[in-house]
């Protein structure tokens, strides 16, 4: 009905106006006369538009006297007033200032040429293609000094993290501050997976103090400014995209053959003069045995649909985007579904009064497992890597296989936990903003912004009886709920002052942001039936006490910025922000974060103005202070805790008491990063080649550190601002349009960053500080494997150097509890003992060099994109291998046994001695990854009446060039940079092959 009506109306209107309209046609070409396809042609002030076809030809209906506007990315826009002609041929000039893109800075935007800071903007056409798990992945390999890593590999619904210019903080969190359309999003929100990458127009990475200091106490780790798509052209556009692909497991290891392992066991027993463990029939029945990785994985799949409607009127803009994304991961039953709806609007009520706002809603459903470190039965990868291949996955009748009767083992079949358990995580997030502005005149305006963010997460777990952990307790259910609310109110004033050639922009504002965090969790077990899942906790025999907790953070800030620009030649920026936060101790309530920066656009000086070679040359320098305010809530006060403080007076049920949670520290404050940056930007040959180079030197003091204190004080740690870390680095970025002919173009981006991290100072002048980090490798004899050492980078591993394998009949005086088949270690200090002092530094888990290389080739309507990423000079502790290589992996067939002594693989289950951190398992992990290749074809507009119809195929993670023999050299099971580089139980990496269609109406 509606469609009919529309057609009718269009028809009527068409006939009504046809008398005064005529069709204008022509061709658009570049200065060399080559036709330009895809140029946007609009009638000014109207919703009519067209674009040029492959040969540069176009048709558009317009009246005499109207103005046609021609716009094309990278070219100067042109307007032509229609006279009485019907043919308008036009040639567009290449925009020399094309790279003078507009970048997003805090509380506004700026032309890149006016900037004094180090900022890199990545627009959506440069995002990494293919299946992107999270927002962060979009800029993988695109920005020098912004390292994108995943702690959870390819797990559906898991966000990657971005680390900008190394690691400043040793207390854990080195994430940048994410600012979406002006709203700083607190860490407690799952922004990375809530947002639909299809909705994002650009991501700007702000790196140095000049750029970041405007966000003061939250900016020390850099800023990631996300801008969402908005209606740009004065017409209505509908965009559509659909993508789908498969994910293929990169198989991390091979299991040993079951019968070979059984035979080895029998031979050992024979050697020892014992009866064989397995009978001949049993060995025959075992055959190859079970490969648990094959059993637990599948080919993954993803689909991604997005629709957008963009509309722009004379005084208003509006767009609404919808998206649906579904990803079934390579681990069976792991799944992520997301539905997003987002809208942006803006309206100018008159010359003075305007408003804008947005609402973004995201709902996701995840079926998730634990991929954390540790040996817990709940860790899916731990079970898939560490279960005997000697028993079948399934019995003949289809039931789950169980370990063999005659073998003493704690193994259990890992499949029920994957296939039969329910692990729902549902999350609904709302990000909404409203802003009101008023322009007093062209030089003065004021804006008041408010934002309300809400995230509601619910998780429900049920382990039925068939899952061993559930069977033990008669069904296990866990329900937890978390809601996070965040309210932002800010107001700021912009003032523009022009005095002759001197332009000065002032920004003055204030902001308050409060965050509220509520959660509860309960556990129930012993159900009369598995049928309820977690939906009827009342049916359980045992319901644990409900845990709940509430955390708030309140921030209040004022900020000021001045940008001075003299004749586009000399630039000066000064910013200062005052931040007060509830998390700061009573003696340090307010922090001051100033920065100052200078820039010189040498290319605007007379002596370079007319140079044919150098089209742009800028030198800039900045210095400033920023902070990291991620202090655990409440820690400046003397807090109590209750969990372990129950006592059963009368010997019956426990009463809950108080005990001290912490030793209070009223001096607690933010970590302060002092950063010096010097950079230059060079544009050559009409900016066909753009080079950017930065050197930075940043020192972070007052590191928040949960310092170990003497235990006789009654607590083990004390949160304090102590110590300092330094990061120095170089960043180099080149963007080049290498070849530019009519038919063939080659664009190249190469970026490389070098970062040197060094611990400068530790508490009380200590030379090294062991991180008490005993999570199961090596037992209690040698806890920990990371150590902070002055002069070394953080996340430095330390461990033994393996000497040899102890042979049968030998014993080691230095390691008295060593059993033959285990490693002896080198006595580094020659004191005749093997102890903690013999552990040496074995490298850091943080890479020194990271790089990205993107090549784009375009031939006619085809284009080919290739992205490579790489990281160098770091190590990973292959815990998977340390724990498992001599157990059930293929390598275990060659493990040390009394009958196989000439090997470097230790005995089975010798992990208490052999698996402790040592140089056999801490390996170099440098790599180059063939991240992405995308081939796309853009249909000429005329073919099917659609604009911008593009079809592309992508392959991701096609190959990794590395010597590292673990899962993947880029994964680390912790984001915590003091303990980076552990390769343990991570969701395995996969290759993705996908097909995508984009279209526009």
């Amino acid at each position, binding site marked *: 009905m509606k469609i009919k009506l529309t057609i009718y109306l269009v028809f009527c209107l068409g006939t009504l106006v046809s008398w005064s309209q005529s069709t204008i046609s022509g061709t658009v070409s570049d200065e060399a006369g080559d036709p330009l396809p895809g140029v946007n042609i609009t009638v000014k002030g109207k919703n009519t538009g067209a674009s040029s076809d492959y040969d540069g030809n176009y048709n558009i209906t317009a009246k005499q006297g109207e103005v046609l506007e021609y716009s094309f990315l990278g070219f100067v826009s042109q307007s032509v007033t229609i006279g009485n002609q019907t043919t308008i041929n036009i040639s567009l000039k290449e925009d020399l200032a094309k790279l003078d893109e507009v970048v997003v800075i805090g509380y506004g935007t700026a032309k890149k040429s006016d900037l004094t800071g180090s900022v890199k903007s990545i627009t959506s056409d440069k995002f990494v293609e293919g299946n992107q798990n999270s927002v962060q992945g979009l800029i993988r390999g695109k920005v020098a000094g912004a390292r994108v890593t995943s702690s959870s590999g390819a797990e559906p619904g898991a966000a990657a993290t971005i680390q900008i210019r190394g690691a400043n903080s040793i207390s854990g969190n080195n994430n940048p501050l994410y600012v979406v359309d002006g709203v700083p999003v607190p860490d407690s929100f799952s922004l990375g997976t809530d947002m639909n990458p299809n909705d994002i127009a650009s991501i700007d990475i702000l790196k140095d103090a000049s750029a970041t200091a405007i966000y003061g106490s939250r900016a020390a780790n850099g800023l990631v400014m996300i801008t969402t798509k908005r209606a740009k052209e004065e017409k209505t556009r509908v965009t559509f995209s659909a993508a789908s692909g498969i994910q293929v497991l990169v198989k991390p290891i091979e299991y040993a053959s079951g019968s070979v392992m059984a035979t080895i066991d029998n031979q050992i027993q024979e050697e020892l003069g014992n009866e064989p463990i397995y009978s001949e029939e049993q060995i025959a029945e075992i055959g190859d045995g079970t490969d648990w990785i094959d059993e637990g994985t599948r080919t993954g799949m993803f689909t991604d649909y997005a629709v957008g409607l963009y509309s722009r009127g004379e005084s208003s803009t509006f767009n609404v985007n919808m998206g649906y994304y579904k990803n079934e991961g390579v681990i069976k039953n792991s799944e992520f579904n997301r539905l997003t709806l987002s809208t942006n609007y803006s309206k100018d009520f008159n010359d003075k009064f305007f408003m804008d706002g947005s609402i973004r809603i995201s709902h996701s459903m995840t079926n998730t497992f634990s991929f954390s470190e540790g040996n817990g039965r709940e860790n899916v990868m731990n079970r898939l890597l560490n279960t005997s291949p000697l028993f079948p996955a399934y019995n003949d009748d289809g039931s789950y296989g169980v370990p063999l009767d005659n073998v003493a083992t704690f193994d259990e079949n890992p499949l029920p936990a994957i296939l039969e358990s329910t692990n729902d995580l549902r999350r609904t997030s709302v990000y909404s903003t409203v802003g009101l502005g008023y322009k007093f005149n062209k030089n003065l305006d004021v804006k008041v912004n408010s934002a309300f963010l809400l995230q509601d997460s619910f998780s429900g777990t049920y382990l039925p009886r068939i899952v061993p952990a559930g069977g033990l307790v008669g069904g296990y259910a866990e329900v937890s709920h978390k809601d996070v609310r965040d309210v932002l109110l800010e107001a700021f004033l912009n003032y523009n002052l022009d005095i002759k050639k001197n332009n000065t922009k002032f920004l003055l504002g204030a902001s308050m942001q409060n965050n509220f965090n509520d959660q509860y969790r309960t556990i129930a077990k012993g159900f009369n039936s598995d049928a309820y899942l977690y939906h009827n906790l009342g049916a359980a025999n045992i319901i644990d006490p409900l845990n709940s907790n509430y955390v708030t953070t309140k921030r209040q800030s004022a900020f000021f910025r001045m940008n001075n620009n003299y004749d586009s030649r000399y630039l000066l920026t000064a910013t200062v922000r005052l931040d007060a936060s509830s998390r700061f101790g009573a003696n340090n309530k307010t922090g001051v974060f100033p920065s100052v920066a200078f820039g010189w656009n040498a290319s605007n000086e007379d002596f370079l103005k007319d140079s044919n070679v150098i089209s742009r040359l800028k030198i800039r320098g900045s210095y400033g202070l920023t902070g990291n305010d991620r202090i655990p809530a409440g820690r400046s006060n003397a807090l109590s805790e209750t969990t372990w403080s129950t006592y059963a007076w009368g*010997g019956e049920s426990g009463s809950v008491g108080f*005990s*001290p949670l912490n030793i209070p520290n009223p001096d607690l404050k933010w970590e302060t990063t002092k950063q010096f940056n010097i950079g230059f930007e060079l544009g050559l040959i009409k900016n066909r080649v753009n080079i950017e180079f930065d050197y930075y030197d940043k020192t972070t003091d007052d590191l928040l550190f949960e310092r170990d204190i003497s*235990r006789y*004080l009654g607590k083990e740690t004390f949160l304090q601002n102590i110590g300092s870390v330094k990061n120095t680095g170089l960043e180099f970025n080149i963007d080049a349009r290498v070849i530019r002919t009519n038919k063939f173009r080659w664009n190249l981006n190469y970026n490389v960053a070098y970062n040197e991290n060094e611990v400068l100072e530790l508490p009380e002048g200590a030379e090294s500080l062991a991180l008490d980090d005993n999570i199961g490798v090596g037992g209690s004899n040698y806890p920990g494997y990371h150590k902070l050492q002055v002069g070394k980078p953080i996340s430095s591993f330390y461990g033994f150097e393996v000497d040899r394998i102890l042979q049968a009949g030998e014993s080691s005086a230095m390691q008295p509890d060593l059993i033959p088949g285990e490693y002896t270690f080198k006595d580094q200090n020659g004191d005749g003992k093997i102890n903690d002092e013999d552990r040496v530094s074995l490298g850091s888990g943080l890479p020194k060099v990271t790089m990205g290389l993107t090549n784009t080739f375009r031939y006619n309507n085809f284009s080919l994109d290739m992205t490579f990423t790489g990281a160098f000079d770091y190590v990973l502790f292959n815990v998977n291998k340390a724990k498992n290589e001599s157990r059930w992996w293929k390598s275990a067939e060659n493990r040390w046994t009394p009958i196989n002594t000439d090997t470097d693989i230790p005995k089975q289950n010798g992990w208490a001695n052999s698996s402790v951190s040592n140089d056999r398992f801490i390996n170099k992990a440098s790599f180059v990854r063939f991240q992405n290749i995308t081939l796309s074809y853009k249909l000429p507009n005329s073919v099917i009446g659609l604009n911008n119809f593009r079809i592309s195929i992508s392959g991701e993670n096609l190959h990794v060039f590395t010597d590292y023999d673990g899962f993947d050299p880029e994964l680390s099971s912790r984001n915590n940079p003091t303990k980076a580089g552990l390769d343990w139980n991570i969701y395995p990496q996969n290759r993705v092959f996908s097909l995508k269609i984009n279209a526009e109406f």
Partner: protein
Amino acid sequence: MKKIIILLIGIVVVSCTKSLEEDLLTNPSLNGLKSEDDVKAALTGAYAGLLGSSNPGYYGRNYLYLREVPTDNLLGTGARKDFDNFTLGTSNTIVVNTYNDIYAMILKANLLIDNVDKAEIDKDLIKWYKAQAQFLVALGYSDLTSLFGPVVLITSSVNDIEDKPSRSSLEDVEQHILTLLEEAIPNLEKEESEDLPGAATLGAGYALKMKLHLKRKEWEKVDKTADLIMQLGRYSLLPNVEDLYAIGNSFNEEIIFSVKTTGDPFGKSLNALAAGSTDIAQHQYDGQNDYWGFGTFRGELKVYYSYDPSDERFIKLFRHSFIDRKGKTVGPKTLDNKNNPEVNKSLPYIYSEKYPHPLAGTETDLRTDIYHGSTLFVFRYAEVLLAKAEALNEINGPSAEVYNLINEVRNRANLPNLETTGSFDQASLRDAIFQERQWEFFMEGYRRDDLIRQGTFVEKIKDSHLKSSDVINVQECHQLFPIPEIERSLNTNITQNECY
């Protein structure tokens, strides 16, 4: 319009002056104890310190690992092997956690001592609460000196973190224990508190004092303090020894002080560490032969075979044999380390029945119910009798009074009077008393202190294993555990004990 904008900016700016205090609703601040509920919660928290801050905990399994494994009573399995063969490192988690747990409890008790005076409650109540906290600090230091020798003496809840004290002298720490007890004892009650049953009574205060005198071999004082306990008139031996260990019988006329636990602990969940309880029971049954227990408490067979077969403590408090999951009979090896012909499978150790699990033997998987309200003994009346006997024998040698005291314990176990089994001089009677103590207090945490006091630490432990080929590398200096390595790295003024 301008006004509106100025107002809006004003709101934001004005709000900045508002205070930025945190809402500490989940973890209320501990700055002040006001009501009796506050004080009670603080005392509850301090008592909870007796169970440590994580499983296995101070008076949980760790207590027995430290006090029974490095003796001739228990074998060490798994990570506890180091205790059994004396290859202990300086970062052993059981040692480190116990050290930390005790000091954590001392901090909680010191917080109460320092702040309770400000509470708005009855003066006598304040004294009683303070006495409770003083008792806990005294108990903590008593255990610390027993395990580690001289330690750093902390007497306040507020300390300078940057201070680097050395270990105090043993004399100073013990003097502090005595001072605390002298202050506490007048304010303790003879009978159990109605409000907080299980809190230290007057008897508990005396018993702790007696324990210190016994350790210091101050025989007259041991005798006198024992008299004070006996004069209270509320303690006697239970007629049937096995009743002492029954679940839910942690209040009776024999128990002077025990750590109370519940079978329904807080935070009881899958694989969780439950506060307010202990999983000792579960560890007296093993997983492979038995009922899916964890089997870490394995009695040495030499002790087992040293009992008189008619001893009730032998008959009732050991699991002489059981049927395993495959229907086979399992029992201990013989004294000459041979397989026992009476059972299908022979084990080189024996399980005790002192911390029974109610579901054992019912073919239930014990892992479904790990935590139990087991009685964790600290002081019981039998020790008062035997300590007094020991003191009198040291003062005057054998006498009728000494025999009577010992016989009270023996007769309850259905053993004849000691003097009918032979003739004793002072030295042989001393040995008999220690032997009686071993039989009576097997797996209750007394053995280590006893061996040290008797001066037989090395000799008895060297000879404890059934397997004659086992070499136990025990030396006199192993009477003290190592100061945790981390403590020494954090404060270099702290010296290490010999042997480590």
